[in-house]
């Protein structure tokens, strides 16, 4: 009789070997260790900091280190108003991130320009970089950002990894 909790995988029966597909394994590794590059530009950055602090811990989801170096990060969280002057720097930093990379546009300003429909504000960061998840809010609650991270994890887990070389060979 089993007194301990039954896990989905029982090492006594199946042995210490798991058979899976590389896509699934790499997807699982990637989604559980998405290191963000916090492009904190304005007020949303404060909520990003709150999401990184202890109450709404973003490290639970694997975003343990907020790498300010783009070369060592996976996901860029654009948090705040992107002015045209800053857009040049955002684009350059996005280009410096190694593949695979994703982008979360946090807040109204990063998604669409927000309340700033003016001459100085880029109307949405998706005009210069491809965005995977948009978070609405001004600023969005830290829980909303964590929800976006979970959605992004779902996207990352399903990304085909090995299909790319086959397409290149065609």
């Amino acid at each position, binding site marked *: 009789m089993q007194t301990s909790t039954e896990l989905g995988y029982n090492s006594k029966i199946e042995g210490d070997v798991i058979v899976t597909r590389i896509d699934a394994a790499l997807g699982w590794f990637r989604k559980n260790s998405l290191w963000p590059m916090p492009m904190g530009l304005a007020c949303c950055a404060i909520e990003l900091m709150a999401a990184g602090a202890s109450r709404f811990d973003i490290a639970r989801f694997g975003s343990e280190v907020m790498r300010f170096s783009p070369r060592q990060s996976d996901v860029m969280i654009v948090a705040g108003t992107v002015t045209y*002057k800053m857009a040049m720097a955002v684009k350059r930093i996005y280009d410096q991130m190694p593949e695979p990379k994703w982008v979360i546009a946090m807040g109204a300003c990063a998604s669409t320009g927000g309340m700033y*429909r003016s001459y100085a504000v*880029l109307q949405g960061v998706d005009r*210069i970089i491809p965005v995977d998840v948009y978070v609405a809010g001004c600023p969005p609650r830290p829980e909303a950002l964590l929800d976006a991270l979970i959605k992004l994890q779902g996207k990352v887990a399903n990304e085909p990894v090995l299909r790319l070389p086959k397409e290149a060979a065609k």
Partner: protein
Amino acid sequence: MSALELAQQLKAKFADLISDPVEFRGEVSLKVLDAERMPEVCVYAKAELGFDYLVDLSSVDNYGDDPRFTMVYELYGYGHRCHLRLKTDVSEEKSELPTVSTIWRTANWHEREIYDMMGVRFRGHPDLRRILMWEGYPYFPLRKDFPLAGKSSELPEVAFTKPAPLEGGPFVTIAGGKDRIAREPRVRIPETDALDTNARLERRKDIQEAHGHSHGPGPVEKAK
């Protein structure tokens, strides 16, 4: 030592250069009639009268009036704790006046902002370049003839900028109106700002005609 007394001292020193002090609600302002001699006045104000803090240096665009720009200097003294305001006019053809950044170092960035937003140059400024917009931006945004949405320009190496989609804005709540969508429509057409109709449903065709595109049905239509 009140601000009015200090202003009168300043007027006594530069008799013809400065207008009479004007007091309004406790604030004293003086008009300097020749912008070229502004640094002289400022040096005297700082050294002799003790106005050692330039609180603000801003500009006003009197679009349609000549001279077009007015510079406003807010001075304050920590010793006597009095404020003083100095104004001077600059015409559009000249668009230039001497810098006061040698007198108060904070004027450095204020003057850069005035140059960026209005296009007024400061002679003798150590580093006069744009501070808020990017280098090479062709317009001066805070002039009254510049639209809020902006004009198209090139963003080097990154993108083009286009005027922002204002959709009939800027947006101010329309008084009255039966529901929130009528009071705060997403798209405004001033002629048909209807108060009694459902803004999204019945105006969709109007929006299509006015702006060339319309938004989708939205939640209210589904409730029907």
